[in-house]
Structures are given as C-alpha cells and as structure tokens.
C-alpha cells in the first residue's frame, strides 16, 4: 500500500471512530425536530451549480439559419454557477421563502473556419468563442417540512424570478465586431424558473452533520437537481434586439444552509 492510500485509510478510520464516539455521547437524530435545540441559526442557503448549457440562440431565427450550431456544433457546453439565497421568511411546518441571486458562467469555443480565399472553409489557426454569464434574481420557496417533521430527507423547491445574461463573442484576436462596427457583446433580459429537489445529506451521517454545524455553522447539506427555464429572449425588458442566450435543462449541485 502506498503512502497516499495509507493516509486515506487512516483518515477514514479516524473519521469513523470520531463519528462513533460522537454518536455514543450525543445520540443524535438526523431529523430536524430533534436537532433544532442544538443547531445554529439558519438564514441563508448557498448553492454550487453545474450542468450542461446550450443557449437558445438558433431559436432566434425563423429562417432556418442556425448560426450557433454552425459555429459550435450541436453539443452542449458546461455551465457552472453559484447562488445565494436569503431565507427571509420561515413558514412553520412548511418551509422557507426568500430572495436569491445567482451568477454563472459558460463558454463555448471552436476552431474558426477560413472565410475567404483559397482555403475558405478549412480550419483556420484561430478559435471563436462565446462567453455567457447567466444571472438571475429570484424568489425561492423550499418546502422542508418533510425533512424537518418527517423522516423523509427530501426538500422540493421552486424558483421564480428575473433573469439576465451578459454575453461576449470573441476570437483569439479579441472581441468580435460586425462589419458595421457593432461590438459582439450584449445583455439579454428574461425570466427564470426552476423546479427541483434536494436530498438531505445529513441523513447519511447525522453526527458529521452536527459537527459541521458546530464547527462552521452549516445547518444542512444537500445534493440537488433541478430543471431550470432560463428564458432569456429579451421580450420582458428593453425594446431592442437581444441574443437569446438562455437555456432549458438540468442543473445539479451542492447546497448548504447556514
């Protein structure tokens, strides 16, 4: 057994012993009802989010043209982001509700084709990029009664709010420009909706969950998955052409309540 494996095994054993000792002394229950006396105050939730992302740019064109697919193909890019929610209002035996904000990032790149000359259509030595930063301000309702009052470690939730994205088209030479000089950067407004479910990780190791709360103030940890509609089509705000950089699809991640 090499050194890293040995260290990992030792850490695992230590962790188990620690959990066992804590369990012996505190006999915790993962359910919130039994832990409420021991836990720290809880007002916020933080999400680290990741998922595939394919902007709906091609839906902007009714002519059948598909500029996004032409440039980047039909695959999906990777999105990551963060969300911070303020659980402003707690509804007893139901859940929490409050505002949240999110910032995300995704970038697509592809080798650009030569557009002119004897090598037109062949791969150039440069790439073309589209960078999108989707953001939203949203209201979040988390129904945690199942986890708090019953032994079901599931927290369904919904989000509804205003979405906005900043996008930037570029090449290796810098930001792209249209022949008329228009800069390839823009802002798109729209709506944001999401439905999802969170799995309470405290269920797996109540002792560790208690320790996490005692040591760093994190009340609950979750894995979550949601279906989001980030409908950024520019129809809601501002009467000007806006690139449809929103998306619809699955997002997964880790959430912490603190």
């Amino acid at each position, binding site marked *: 057994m090499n050194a890293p494996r040995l260290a990992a095994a030792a850490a695992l054993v230590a962790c188990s012993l620690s959990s066992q000792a804590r369990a012996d002394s505190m006999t915790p229950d993962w359910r919130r009802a039994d832990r409420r006396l021991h836990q720290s105050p809880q007002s916020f939730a933080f999400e680290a989010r990741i998922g595939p992302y394919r902007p709906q*740019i091609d839906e*902007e*064109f009714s*002519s059948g*043209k*598909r*500029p*996004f697919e*032409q*440039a*980047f193909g039909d695959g999906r890019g990777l999105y990551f982001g963060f969300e911070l929610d303020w659980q*402003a*209002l*707690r509804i007893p035996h139901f859940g929490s509700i*409050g*505002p949240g904000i999110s910032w995300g990032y995704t970038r697509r790149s*592809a080798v*650009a*084709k*030569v*557009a*002119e*000359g*004897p*090598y*037109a259509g062949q791969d*150039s*030595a*440069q790439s*073309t*990029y*589209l960078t999108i930063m989707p953001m939203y301000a949203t*209201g979040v309702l988390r129904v945690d009664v199942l986890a708090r009052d019953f032994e079901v470690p599931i927290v369904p939730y919904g989000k509804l709010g*205003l979405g906005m994205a*900043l996008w930037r*088209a*570029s*090449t*290796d*030479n810098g930001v*792209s420009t*249209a*022949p008329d000089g*228009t*800069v*390839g*950067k*823009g*802002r798109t*407004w729209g709506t944001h909706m999401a439905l999802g479910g969170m799995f309470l990780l405290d269920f797996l190791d109540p002792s560790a969950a208690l320790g996490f709360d005692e040591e760093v103030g994190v009340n609950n940890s979750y894995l979550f998955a949601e279906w989001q509609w980030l409908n950024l089509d*520019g*129809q*809601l*705000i*501002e*009467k*000007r*052409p*806006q*690139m449809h950089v929103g998306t619809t699809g699955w997002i997964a991640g880790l959430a912490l309540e603190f």
Partner: protein
Amino acid sequence: MPRPHRWALSVVAATALLVCAGDALAQTVSLATAQANPSRKGGFRSQDRYPLWISKADCLADDSYTFVVRVANLGSTPLFVFASAAGQDCSDPTTRSGANARCWKLAEINAQSGATSYSITLPVRDIVGGYDQPSTFNPGATEAVCERSGSDAPLGVLLHFLPVQAAGGVVAGTGFQYNEIKFDLVPPSAPTNVSAGIGDGVLELSWTTSLSTDISGYQFYCDPAPGEDAPSSTTPVGAAGAAGASSTSPGCAGSGNAGAAGSAGAAGTAGAAGTGGASFLAAGFGGDAGAAGDAGAAGSAGAGAGATSGSGGSSAAGASSGSGGSSSGAAGKSGTTGAAGCSTAGATCGRSTLIVGGTFGPSGHECGRATGNTATTGRTSDLKNAVEYSVAVAAIDNVGNVGRISAPKCLAPAQIEDFYGVYVRSGGQAGGGWCQTSTPGTGSAALSLGALAAVFALRAARRRR
C-alpha cells in the same frame, strides 16, 4: 666624523628613507566609490538582459565602457588595463607578453601629477578582440572581431587595473579586477519545424525551439512588412535575352522567378543575367537562377543567365552571367523560370531552404515576438488579410542577439468565420456592448412594480419575525 657631518648624513639618510618609503607606500587603484559599475556609451540594457554584457550589436555599434578609477600614491607609475579570460591572473609579467601571454592590453594611462582619479574608456571590441589570441592583440580592433562562431555560450572577461612599472613590467602596488563583463557574440541557432496557420489579420506560428541554451524569446519577421501591402510585381532584368517571367507572388522571399536566360541572339549578344525576383529579405532570399539559354547555332554561346542573389543575400546561389555570344546565330531558347514561391499554404517559399541558417537583420520587418525560452507558438501582428506574406522566426538570446532565421513559410491571413460574424450574417441584430441602452419597454414598468412588491414583502416578513 665631525658632528655637523653626522647631522647632515642623518638628514640625507632620513630623506632617502622617506623617499624610499614613499615609493614603498602602497600604490592603490580602485573604482570610484560613487560609481561601482562603468558607464556605457550605448547605454544599458534592462536588468533582465545582462546590462553589463557585450552583445553582437554592442560590438558592431563600437560601444565602450568608461570606468572612473581612483588612485592613490601612484606617483609616476603608469596605470595599465589588461583583459584576460575569467580566472586568469595578469600580475605576472610573463602573462602579459610573449607567445604564451594570457592577458592583452586594453589601455595605458600615464600618471599625472596630483591626479587622484582617471576616466578610462575601453572599447568593447578591444575587450573581445584579444580573447582568442591575446599574445598578438593590439588595441584598436575593428568590427571584424564581432563576427564569431562556435559555441553561443557567454564568455567571461576579467579586467585588470594595474600600476605597472616601466622597467620589468612589475606590478607596483595594488590593482583591482573587474569581473562583471561577459560577451556573447554568437547568435542563437534558428528554430526548426516552423509552421504557419491562417488567422484574421494574423498568422499563427509554431516551431521547435532553438537548440541554443540562452534563449530569451523569439522574433518573427514578415515580408511585406506589417501594415504594408505586397510590393508590385517585379520584372527581372533580361537585357538581351527573352524577358524573364515576372514573379507572380510578389513579396515572398525567394519567390521571385528568375529572369529567363538571355538568348544568343542573331548578333550574338549575351543574354543578360536574369535577376532574382524582388525579395524583401535582404539576407539570402535570392531569386532563382534562370536557366541557361541554349546556344545559338552559330553563336558561341547563349548566355546562361544566372540570377543575382537577393540584395545582400549571402547564400542564394546564383550563377554568374554568361558571356555574350560572339557571332550571329539562332536565338537561344529562353531559360526556364524559377520555381514559384508562396503558392502553397505553409509550404516553404521557392528557394527558402537556401537561407536556412542565414543571418537576418533588417529592421522594419519585425511582426511579432514570443517571450520565454520554452515558447513554441506565437502570433504575428498587424498583417493584412489576403496579402501573402513570407514569415520566419529567429531566436533571441539573453543579451538580445537575434539569431539566424528559420526557413520561411508563405501564407496569407484571411478573414475567419467567427460565431458573431455568422450570427450577424444570419440576420442577428444583438450586440453593441453590455451597457447598451434602449427605450424602456412596457416590461420595465412591470419589473419596477415587481421589485417594489418584493421589497415590501421582505420588509413585512422581517417585521413579523
């Protein structure tokens, strides 16, 4: 002995002692404390470029160092400055003269009465000139010493500032040594496997690094120079013979087609030499030689017209002009044109292989640079789309010596199909910047109301808690 005589003798003896002691007082030479390092006529390079070292450019520019040297008790003893390879000692007279001399003289300063310091200027050519043959070196080296081959590793030179007695060459007192100077006159070797790719207004280059060990970066060269269009077509000279085919790829180094061979005309005039196609690269991008014309039937010879090399070219192989025919005869056939350059993307230009390893140095053709000794890719700048360029790469060493250029590649930048271009051509109208504003739509009012409602709701919630 009478007392007065004794007294006089004592005075003489004391005086002699003082004089002797004066000579015996340490004669010291030191750099002025206010100037630990010398000044340079050509100024100093940046700290990361070894400002005290000597590069080939320094040597060609006849740069010099000026030391301010403080002396004490030098008397009439002249001050000498010698140079040696690092680690040598020049205090022994045998190291400074004879067939086995290891030190070479740079300067000799006759002592001036009462002087406490001297300003001594040492040409860098003298410093490097005696390195290989110190025994035969004399100050006043020409720029020929700047040409050096072999290892491109920097060589250390030790400067010795010594008070040396005229008689016997004995060092009289204490001098000092200055060991901060090295010289590097050998440019780095050329990078290899250079390839070029098409970009929008640029060419993307990649290469295999130079084998030299003291590389600080890579310099790109383009022809035509950045920002310029290709030069017009060139028509080689073919005075008496058939006109040579002009270059169809102007501006590409080495791509100029050769002038056709002069024919042996009826009057037997010589076919003039076809010139190489116009070539930007002063060094070595010679045009192709025109093929020899066939001899006229009755003529002595149709001249074989050789192209001249590109101006200043050192390695283009052009045949010399042939002599004219001496008698009438049928016209010789035209020579064949040289190989065309710049016709294939990324291919080497015509005779570009002729100049691989050649020196290069015209300013104005620099079109980009990559820093770092491990750089293997880079991008040219300020090129024009649809203009065919010959582009080459040269390594730069730590003192700024630009090395020999690589085999050039020929390629034309071109517009690329980036996403935004495709989007706009498809009819997309978005863009203009992140802070672009527009007339507020009806949605703005709804949004404002929504935001207000949210604020009130939150405040109410807080009051409730």
